[in-house]
């Protein structure tokens, strides 16, 4: 289905303070793929993810999502298709209760309150957090926040799911739950993370970013066992591939 | 040396909203030990760490640091011995330049400016960040901030070092650097983390917290390879012990 394709063509991005965060990035992700974006601190992973639904617009180059070129005009449309989970769940949860937060997106899509309730219900169950629905987000533990942040995005039923460092604050069990959620999700997934073991479990393909350029792009197994390539990028072999 | 001992005797702690975060916690850590505190999200790890220098005072029970009982009166004294690195370096770096931030503690100890300079110098070199000394913390990358946060604590030359989730946002290379730093530190270390591989590398002993109580306490190798115990606590085997 062409409308789930993500295509970057020679994308450059320069922050207004003239940091060149992306330099000539090109790749194409087709429907249903699970792609890991890896690289050292400051490589440009988060910047890349923010292009997926037009929070940032390329300085030059073309980003295509489905059959739409990303521009200031099309991004509202594109945002209905692409859901992004940010690095820090605190940034994602801005309403006073968990329920309101998860319901925020569906309500803005103009859905009936009845349908909204169903969506919220489903999304919270997906991350095992339905019991938290009436709590204020700032009294949740870190891991619970992350789970709810994922629910807010899942409630929009995105065609393309992007996550930035989704497991950083999760305990190992919640992390495993997330991995299961991600492997059962059938649409496209794009995951930026330092947790190479998670990438190894979830993704079939891997893109290595270094200083804003694509340093490597290929099957995840291959890239994640290439010790030299990884070390050049401030990374290491996934812990499960390191033998003691 | 008795003054580097950490001793919890039947410690209870209840947050003002009546969440019982610690329930009858008892343990004793002697000088030079490296102890990992592990447990699921919301188990009470951060709450426990905040007791170490009296940011929180037990609702009941006794905390002893060195030869002092922790009370509202003694905590100023205790804070000179215990250094805590919080989860988020932005909460820890509050001065406008790195130098001023690292110098804040020594200056408050009433040291001469000459000695302060030496301390700052040493502490920043320890984390390989001396070149950053004139930068404002907000222009540092996440990993750099974490390193500086550690330096601010090291500059106080604590007898007891406590860290809450120190590796969460670091790329694998910076994480390896942190592990080296921790293994070469000779005083007591207390590290709360979900990164069980880091705990395995650094700690000789491990305390498992579940719902505010001590669920297990023993040699790290033993506990971290006890799959059943770990799974009961929302944890898993360290990734390096999981064989694919």
């Amino acid at each position: 289905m062409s409308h789930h394709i993500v295509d970057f063509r020679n994308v450059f991005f320069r922050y207004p303070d003239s940091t060149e965060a992306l330099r000539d990035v090109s790749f194409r992700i087709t429907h249903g793929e699970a792609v890991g974006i890896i690289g050292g601190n400051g490589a440009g992973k988060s910047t890349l993810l923010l292009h997926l639904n037009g929070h940032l617009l390329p300085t030059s180059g073309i980003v295509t999502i489905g059959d739409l070129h990303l521009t200031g005009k099309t991004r509202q449309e594109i945002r209905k298709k692409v859901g992004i989970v940010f690095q820090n769940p605190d940034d994602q949860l801005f309403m006073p209760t968990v329920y309101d937060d998860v319901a925020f997106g569906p309500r803005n899509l103009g859905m009936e309150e009845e349908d909204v309730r169903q969506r919220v219900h489903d999304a919270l169950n997906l991350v095992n957090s339905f019991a938290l629905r009436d709590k204020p987000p700032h009294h949740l533990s870190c891991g619970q926040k992350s789970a709810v942040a994922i629910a807010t995005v899942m409630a929009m039923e995105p065609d393309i799911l992007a996550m930035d460092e989704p497991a950083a604050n999760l305990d190992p069990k919640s992390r495993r739950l997330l991995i299961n959620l991600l492997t059962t999700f059938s649409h496209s997934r794009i995951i930026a993370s330092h947790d190479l073991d998670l990438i190894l479990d979830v993704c079939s393909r891997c893109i290595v970013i270094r200083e804003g350029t694509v340093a490597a792009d290929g099957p995840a197994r291959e890239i994640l066992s290439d010790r030299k390539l990884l070390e050049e990028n401030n990374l290491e072999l996934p812990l499960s591939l390191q033998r003691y | 040396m008795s003054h580097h001992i950490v001793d919890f005797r039947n410690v209870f702690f209840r947050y003002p909203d009546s969440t019982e975060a610690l329930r009858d916690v008892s343990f004793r850590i002697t000088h030079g030990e490296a102890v990992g505190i592990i447990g699921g999200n919301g188990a009470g790890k951060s709450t426990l760490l905040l007791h170490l220098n009296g940011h929180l005072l037990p609702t009941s029970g006794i905390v002893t640091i060195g030869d002092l009982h922790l009370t509202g009166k003694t905590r100023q004294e205790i804070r000179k011995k215990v250094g805590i690195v919080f989860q988020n370096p932005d909460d820890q770096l509050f001065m406008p330049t790195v130098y001023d931030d690292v110098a804040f503690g020594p200056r408050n100890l009433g040291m001469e400016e000459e000695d302060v300079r030496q301390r700052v110098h040493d502490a920043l070199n320890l984390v390989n960040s001396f070149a950053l000394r004139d930068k404002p913390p907000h222009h540092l990358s996440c990993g750099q901030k974490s390193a500086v946060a550690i330096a601010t604590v090291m500059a106080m030359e604590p007898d007891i070092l406590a860290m809450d989730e120190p590796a969460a946002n670091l790329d694998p290379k910076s994480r390896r650097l942190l592990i080296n730093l921790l293994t070469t530190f000779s005083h007591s270390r207390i590290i709360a983390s979900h990164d069980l591989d880091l705990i395995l590398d650094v700690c000789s002993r491990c305390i498992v917290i579940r719902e505010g109580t001590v669920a297990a306490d023993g040699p790290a190798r033993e506990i971290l390879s006890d799959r059943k115990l770990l799974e009961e606590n929302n944890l898993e085997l360290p990734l390096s012990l999981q064989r694919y």
Partner: protein
Amino acid sequence: MHMADALLSPAVGATMWAGSLAALGYASKKLKETIDNKTIPLMGVMGAFIFAAQMINFTIPGTGSSGHLGGGMILAIMLGPYAAFLVLASVLTVQALFFADGGLLALGCNIWNLGIYPCFLAYPLIYKPIAGKGTSTRRLSIAAIVSALIALQLGAFSVVLETLLSGKSELPLDTFLLLMQPIHLAIGLVEGFVTAGIISYVQSARPEFLESNITSRPHAAGTPVKNILIVFAIITVITGGALSWFASTHPDGLEWSIEKITRKGELAQQTQGIAAALRKVQEKTAFLPDYNFPSTSPAAGKDGKPASWPQIEPGTSVAGIVGSAIVLGLIMLIGFGIKTFKKRQS
């Protein structure tokens, strides 16, 4: 509605700076007596909060245009007047420096307009009496809205006065008021609504925070005649603003209300009184003469009275134009010179 340097005269700028500095010193002194250490980081971070809040835009209902928060009343309610004033002053300072919002000389005016009114007038004289002990959300909200409105009206009014007294603008008082007050009535309403919303949210989520502040906050001094007079003045301004807004929506009543309120009313005379006084101050303090500049207005010097407009002889102005061009050219040359010199060095 930040006042700008370019619209100020030295006398007005200096006077307002003096007033604001005095208030800063006073607030710091007061605060030092009562502050607990915990408040120091809280104040700093709250300043950053106001800053961040001002950067978020939202749609004002019905208009489609977007507004943003001023924050004076929120701070006063949450931190008490002294701490709030220091925080606001620091926010305005950073704005003046980093955003060039206002300017350094106008900073005195801006601290006065946006800091003094909410912290030292609206808060003790309007918010506290209406809010009472601060338990009923409804009363808190009404108090917040009314006081935010009044503080903003006063601020807008001051901008008008400061501009007119500086004498750089030709706008007549009435038109200017008509431009400023109604707009700020709308802005103030939104501000009040937002303030009330935040306060009632905080009250429901962390009541202990609000309470501890309310009890630890210093109370306003007794209410002598002076304060009553101030309230009276405030009410005058408000009705002035409200009526002129009413007038602008009812074109028939326009002339009538302007006539009544500004030209013949007390307000205008009062202004003239202040203006005259200030002008005297200016004459005495001005070591740089504001009028009678010999080359551009030769006529004025002879008459011995301030020139209302310059009597430029054509010859002089040609010289002026040519000279200005030469000066600009020279400065650009100097700039390029320094630039190439630096390049060659590096």
